[in-house]
């Protein structure tokens, strides 16, 4: 009574059937014609794009004895036994279940046997990323120089997990996500073969949900087909797959962009009451907000995945005077983050409500109960929209790094190069503010015990991003003073500033101990003070990934570390000044460590 899943039933059987991967299939076909088949291939790429299918087709093609210019013929005996899974010349190994060295040893012993029917024995090792290290190593020699009649095809979705020694021994082919219309084309083919009546819009919708994976889209088609209604329209497909109607989403988008908190909360509740799935609702909200953004900044409607009625509604929303681009951008960001929070939320509506409330609060300050946020009604449309345009928007649309803009350099160059140049530049703070810093510091520097009251003033002058921005200069200047110490400094990164006390994160306890030695520390303080033009002290802590976080966020653009660590610093200050902590210190406690987790806002 089980029918095969569509995706399995309509697996591609010829190279031409592998859609969207012409760069791979053509190369393979050419190799076969020229008789230059490699002995080890690696097929990597996203799920459901044709890796395993291509491997099987390749195995048939090189063994095919049929009379065709374009093997495999799928007619001859060899092709047929292989397709039936009965051939001894096509060995498919599930590396995820057989991941140990013993299985690979067994494979090695058998590699010597000659093919039974065809010319080659083909070993397809699927999910190869799951092999243990020992198994990989045991495979190396065989993979490099297999007997002439053996061909290996390794398939994986996670090529980054393979050792370099494996990668370098294979011809690597990267399978790409397929374009939406290509996936739709495959779905159309399946529908025709199966006698299913599905509208073009419905197929386009399925293909889009599949996100470039044939299998994902085919699984969805399977589900729609299983419902067994005669003609499948877009609406039916959407309702079978639990999509959220755009009108429900519109309530949320409208409330967000015009700053109506209570209305937004009710819209979320309404969507949930009507049985929307949290993830789909969230996805639809983000998609609609994105469409709003693109329309607002003036892209043409083409390529936006919205129906005409929806586009019309969105246009009239943009025309409302209270519409705020800033809240829109903030909303996109916060709703995108909410997806993560859904995993641990006590109720699925909570992350959505939070995202909505906070996106609106960003603009309006304190929230007034039950009424639109203050700014919404007050600001006239033209100014509210236009004055906001430059700053927040590019950050969301394209990652123009804030740092790159600051130094006037394009961001694409290697970090090392940028660091070197930064080192030769002048201090990246306005002259006056750094003088202020110096002045203030000299005034209050005499009374270090009175730290708490003056931190606010000092923090304004010596801030973390100034220290971080000039860190490479500090490292560079240390070379002249003490090359060994410079080597240590390279694996150290400033992560905090409290008054004139700079916290340096060291990659290991070894580095921290080296730096904490009085003489060396004084040297660092000296150079740091010179560069910054203000006296500072240094403390060292161990924090292995401080720099990684920094570099990660540099690459990501958008939300730079500088902003983040500034916020962290502010929070740190807040914690230190927190009445509870002060309370404890006054009772004779000592603050040994103030800990802040990187995922404060997750």
């Amino acid at each position, binding site marked *: 009574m089980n029918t095969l899943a569509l995706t399995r039933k309509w697996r591609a059987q010829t190279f031409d059937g592998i859609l969207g991967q012409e760069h791979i299939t053509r190369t393979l076909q050419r190799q076969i014609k020229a008789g230059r088949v490699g002995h080890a291939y690696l097929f990597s790429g996203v799920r459901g794009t044709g890796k395993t299918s291509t491997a099987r087709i390749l195995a048939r093609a090189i063994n095919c004895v049929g009379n065709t210019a374009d093997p495999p013929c799928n007619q001859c005996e060899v092709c047929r036994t292989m397709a039936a899974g009965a051939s001894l010349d096509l060995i498919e190994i599930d590396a*995820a279940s057989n991941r140990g060295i013993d299985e690979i040893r067994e494979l090695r012993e058998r590699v010597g046997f000659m093919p039974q029917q065809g010319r080659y024995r083909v070993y397809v090792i699927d999910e190869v990323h799951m092999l243990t290290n020992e198994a990989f190593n045991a495979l190396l020699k065989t993979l490099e120089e297999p007997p002439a009649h053996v061909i290996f095809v390794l398939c994986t979705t996670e090529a980054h997990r393979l050792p370099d020694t494996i990668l370098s021994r294979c011809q690597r082919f990267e399978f790409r996500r397929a374009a939406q219309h290509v996936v739709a084309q495959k779905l159309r083919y399946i529908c025709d073969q199966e006698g299913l009546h599905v509208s073009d819009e419905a197929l386009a919708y399925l293909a889009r949900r599949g996100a470039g994976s044939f299998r994902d889209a085919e699984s969805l088609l399977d589900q729609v087909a299983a419902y067994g209604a005669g003609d499948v329209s877009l609406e039916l497909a959407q309702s079978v797959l639990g999509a959220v109607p755009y009108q429900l989403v519109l309530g949320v988008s409208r409330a967000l962009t015009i700053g109506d908190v209570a209305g937004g909360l009710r819209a979320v509740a309404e969507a949930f009451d009507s049985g929307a799935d949290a993830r789909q609702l969230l996805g639809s909200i983000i998609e609609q907000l994105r469409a709003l953004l693109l329309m607002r900044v003036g892209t043409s409607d083409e390529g936006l995945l919205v129906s005409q009625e929806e586009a019309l509604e969105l246009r009239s929303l943009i025309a409302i005077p209270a519409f705020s681009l800033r809240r829109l951008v903030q909303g996109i960001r916060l709703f995108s983050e909410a997806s993560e929070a859904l*995993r641990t939320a006590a109720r699925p509506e909570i992350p959505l409500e939070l995202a909505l409330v906070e996106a609106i609060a960003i603009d309006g300050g304190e929230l007034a109960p039950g009424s639109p946020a203050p700014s919404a009604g007050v600001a006239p449309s033209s100014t509210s929209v236009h004055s906001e345009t430059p700053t927040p928007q590019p950050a969301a649309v394209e990652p123009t790094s804030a740092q790159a803009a600051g130094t006037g350099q394009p961001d694409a160059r290697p970090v090392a190069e940028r660091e070197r140049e930064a080192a030769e530049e002048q201090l990246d703070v306005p002259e006056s503010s750094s003088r202020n810093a110096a002045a203030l510091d000299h005034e209050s520097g005499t009374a270090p015990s009175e730290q708490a009251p003056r931190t606010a003033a000092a923090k304004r002058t010596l801030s973390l991003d100034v220290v971080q921005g000039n860190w490479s200069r500090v490292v560079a200047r240390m070379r002249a003073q003490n090359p060994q110490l410079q080597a240590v400094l390279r694996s150290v990164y400033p992560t905090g500033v409290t008054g004139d006390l700079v916290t340096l994160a060291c990659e290991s306890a070894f580095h921290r101990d080296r730096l904490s030695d009085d003489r060396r520390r004084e040297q660092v303080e000296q150079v740091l003070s010179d560069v910054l033009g203000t006296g500072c002290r240094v403390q060292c802590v161990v924090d292995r990934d401080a720099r990684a976080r920094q570099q990660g966020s540099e690459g990501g653009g958008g939300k730079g570390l500088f902003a983040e660590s500034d916020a962290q610093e502010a929070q740190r200050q807040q914690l230190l000044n927190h009445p509870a902590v002060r309370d404890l210190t006054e009772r004779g406690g000592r603050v040994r460590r103030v800990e802040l987790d990187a995922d404060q806002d997750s």
Partner: protein
Amino acid sequence: MWQIIGHEWAVELLRRSLVNGRSAQALLFAGPDGVGKTRLAWALAAALNCDANDPPCGRCRACGLVARRQHPDVLLVEPDGARLKIDQVRELQHTLSLSPVMGRQRVAILSQFESATREAANALLKTLEEPPPHATLVLTASDAELLLPTIVSRCRVMALRPVPVDTIAEALRTQKGVAAEQAQMLARLAGGRPGWALRVLEDDGLLAARGADLDLLEELVQAGRWERLDAAERLAKRDDLVDLLALWQVWWRDVQLAALGCRDLIVNLDRADAVTRAAGHLSAAEAARAVRGLARVRARLLRNVNARLALEAMLLQWQRAH
């Protein structure tokens, strides 16, 4: 006779796919704890082995065996300890390769699959994609996003949504004979999870415990630092801490909504007074911060942080309402 509370669309989809002979061999039921995933999986297992015209009939031998969890061809694979391990998957692969003993289909229900180790999940990939002809695999997970995309891609995914309050209330009345008022209240509190309401019916200690936990929360909100630190020490020892924090998160969410003028959306109806009072003292932003804080601590507890420290930090951040 699927006997599922809510999820009519899912039942309909499964029923129609059986009728149309397009039953999937790999399914994933996703949804929060107690929403009804495993129940639906058992019902499907019965349907796959029942010979009646509109399976499951609930009367035949196969249905009876499945209902008693004794059917030899239906097996439940649960996490072994905290995780589902690769050896369990290997054993399952072996069992599934054998023909059914008495029924037509071997059905494997892999519950809480998000707890599977990376090795176990990967080991299931090939089986999931090309199962033996007589086998059906049903995975359940609290959220599809917690699984490998390669796993999800091989399954027909059915995301079970929270069940509407009225549906749960009605089921409690008609199936369990609960008085209308109590049914309504339980249904509200269940947060869309019929399983929770049913558990409460079997064990009224749960409801009392919930009341006590909320009492404690309302006390703590008005308490000073020392009481809070004290409480953190006691709470850290509880083994249902994650559930407690979920309960508290919903209470704070209610405060947030009340502060924003949406009293009608409050979940903890029996606590409406305390919630409104707190909303009078605290701003929505403060409540929102508390909601986020609870999510954070919950996430961390799942990663084994020091519970006491995490609780202390969280409790001290709450604004005092008095």
